[in-house]
């Protein structure tokens, strides 16, 4: 790339993150400040912080890449990521805040009074948290490698070190300010280049996004192949390419078809028209996982304890829904314009890089193009830093209280270092996993474990500790097993592949059914204080005795 602005932008984002972290450090004095920011964060700050924390590498880079590659069918990802907050608002936000729990395991113990269930929930929080941290660190390494040519481990180590130090030193109060800043940075970093890109598209006389003959190269392009693939050349020939092969195309030449990518304009532009049941099943399963998975992600829940009361938690969630929704309008612009300006990404398979490379490709290598490229790089880095910070805070929170068993500031710092080093080691050694696959696994596991636990725990008096534990193990275990088989197991086709690749449509109902059935069978062990708990979860704070 040779764009000096990019490195400066990444350094600036990192320094500002650390700077705001230290500003917060001056304010963080007690353990309570560390864990829940003393519950005195205003709804607007808190909402921006939740949004900043939620919009990860998958949202900032992945969604646009998926749209570039697959077209209209993957628009369900951003819709589901946003709708997850509506489910959270309707079923969880206010009662969860009123429960007064610090973490998800706290909620289990408060509601069902079981130490065993608490331990199980702790294990799931740590599992989902680490599962989500590894792809963030990998994304950072790959972004640094793409943009500045640095070796892969550097980006991953940089993000891991900055985030661990910041969380350990500043705790959550600092993180709230950092996250809020990073939401606005991410929105700006996509919105401003998007305006320039649309203006450039207008100036270029609005080239068609889906010309009838398929995507074409606008300029002479040399492509270096990264993954083995089979290309169907325009003259009908098939050609096998291997990593390292160089292909040169003249301006105006069509992009060859690649197996597994929607290059046919109608496939990309229109929803799956073949009325096949598997396609519909996959779509509905994806909708269910994203709608219900959000409420089960540990770093999302941790934020709700920082609201002053239940009504504020509700309003905060509504603002988050608006902020996140506004953000998700933008990746579609990048995905669509990527068809015109960066069609070579379809060939290399690096569609995740479309957000990073589009400003340079469309606006040229002048100062504007380079500045905007630096801005999106800064936004991408903000995405890695903020999501990793949130995940690390919640994983470190449960490790310090449930595994180390101390509530001190020193214990929290020790837990942070512990929680940060495990996924770093994984990220440095495992580079074969795909970001979107792992993120999908985390959503499916969360939707099949914590979602039924929270919804039934909040709304149904009959839930028992045994029912909750068996449901979490069966549902969450089935979801985790299904996606692990997809990622690591032999290639499958037809219905088995669809059922395992998008398991939520059967694992979520399974978890609910098992939880209700086992609870009904053990109804004698319904906690005796369930009435008092319901009173606390659902009545306004003003009425508390």
């Amino acid at each position: 790339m040779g764009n000096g602005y990019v490195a400066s932008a990444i350094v600036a984002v990192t320094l500002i993150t650390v700077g705001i972290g230290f500003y917060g450090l001056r304010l963080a004095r007690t353990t309570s400040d560390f864990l829940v920011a003393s519950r005195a964060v205003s709804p607007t700050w808190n909402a921006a912080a939740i949004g900043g924390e939620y919009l990860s590498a998958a949202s900032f880079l992945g969604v646009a890449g998926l749209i570039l590659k697959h077209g209209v069918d993957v628009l369900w990802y951003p819709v589901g990521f946003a709708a997850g907050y509506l489910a959270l608002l309707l079923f969880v936000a206010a009662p969860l805040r009123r429960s007064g729990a610090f973490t998800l395991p706290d909620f289990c113990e408060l509601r069902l009074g079981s130490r065993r269930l608490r331990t199980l929930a702790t294990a799931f929080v740590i599992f989902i948290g680490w599962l989500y941290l590894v792809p963030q660190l990998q994304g950072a390494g790959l972004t640094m490698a793409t943009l500045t040519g640095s070796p892969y481990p550097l980006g991953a180590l940089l993000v891991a070190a900055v985030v661990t130090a910041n969380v350990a030193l500043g705790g959550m109060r600092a993180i709230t300010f950092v996250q809020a800043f990073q939401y606005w940075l991410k929105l700006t970093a996509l919105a401003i280049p998007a305006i320039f890109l649309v203006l450039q598209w207008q100036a270029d006389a609005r080239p068609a996004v889906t010309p009838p003959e398929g995507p074409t190269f606008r300029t002479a392009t040399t492509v270096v192949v990264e993954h083995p693939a089979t290309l169907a050349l325009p003259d009908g020939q098939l050609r096998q390419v291997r990593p390292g092969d160089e292909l040169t195309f003249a301006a105006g030449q069509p992009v060859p078809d690649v197996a597994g990518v929607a290059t046919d304009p109608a496939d990309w532009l229109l929803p799956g028209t073949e009325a096949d049941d598997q396609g519909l099943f996959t779509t509905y399963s994806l909708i269910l996982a994203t709608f219900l998975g959000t409420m089960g992600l540990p770093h999302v829940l941790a934020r709700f304890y920082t609201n002053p009361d239940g009504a504020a938690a509700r309003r905060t969630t509504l603002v988050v829904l608006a902020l996140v929704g506004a953000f998700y309008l933008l990746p579609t612009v990048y995905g669509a314009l990527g068809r015109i300006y960066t069609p070579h990404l379809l060939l290399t398979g690096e569609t995740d890089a479309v957000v990073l490379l589009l400003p340079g490709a469309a606006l040229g290598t002048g100062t504007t193009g380079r500045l905007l490229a630096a801005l999106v790089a800064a936004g991408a880095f903000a995405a890695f830093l903020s999501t990793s910070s949130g995940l690390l805070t919640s994983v470190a929170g449960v490790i310090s209280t449930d595994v180390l068993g101390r509530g001190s500031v020193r214990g929290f710092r020790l837990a942070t270092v512990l929680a940060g080093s495990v996924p770093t080691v994984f990220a440095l050694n495992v580079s074969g996993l795909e970001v979107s696959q792992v993120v999908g696994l985390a959503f499916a596991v969360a939707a099949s474990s914590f979602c039924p636990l929270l919804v039934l725990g909040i709304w149904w008096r009959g839930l028992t500790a045994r029912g909750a534990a068996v449901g979490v193990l069966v549902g969450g275990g089935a979801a985790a097993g299904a996606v692990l088989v997809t990622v690591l197991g032999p290639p499958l086709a037809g219905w088995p592949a669809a059922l395992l690749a998008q398991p939520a449509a059967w694992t979520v109902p399974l978890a609910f059914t098992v939880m209700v059935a086992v609870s009904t069978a053990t109804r004698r062990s319904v906690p005796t204080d369930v009435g008092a708990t319901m009173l606390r979860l659902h009545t306004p704070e003003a009425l508390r005795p």
Partner: protein
Amino acid sequence: MVAADDRVSARTRIVLADVVRRESDSEHPRTELAEQTRVGAALVRGLVRAQLSLALRLWLVVAVGLGGLPWLFAIAPSVSRVTVLGVHLPWVLLGVLPFPFLVLVGWAYVRLAERNEQDFTDLIQRPER
């Protein structure tokens, strides 16, 4: 939506008021709530039921409004070919409209849920008879 909610919260209020009158003419509901008497428990049950039915009804609106789309595209492919200002309808229905729709549903929920709580608070804090 609003009319339906008025009906439900009005019904809840009447039922709870009946319980209060019948079982405890002298006790103040706020004490009942704290001491977990049968009346207090009935009051909380009523509130939980009202809030849950509100959440489920709005969830149904989203399930039909968004969840119906894949089905619609599958059974009526011609819908997908309609264009609005040069953009194909599915891109508008999935890329733009869901976000304001979700915020609108969320806004309605916050308003109605706070009204349910206000009704409950009014009931508990009625002056002594």
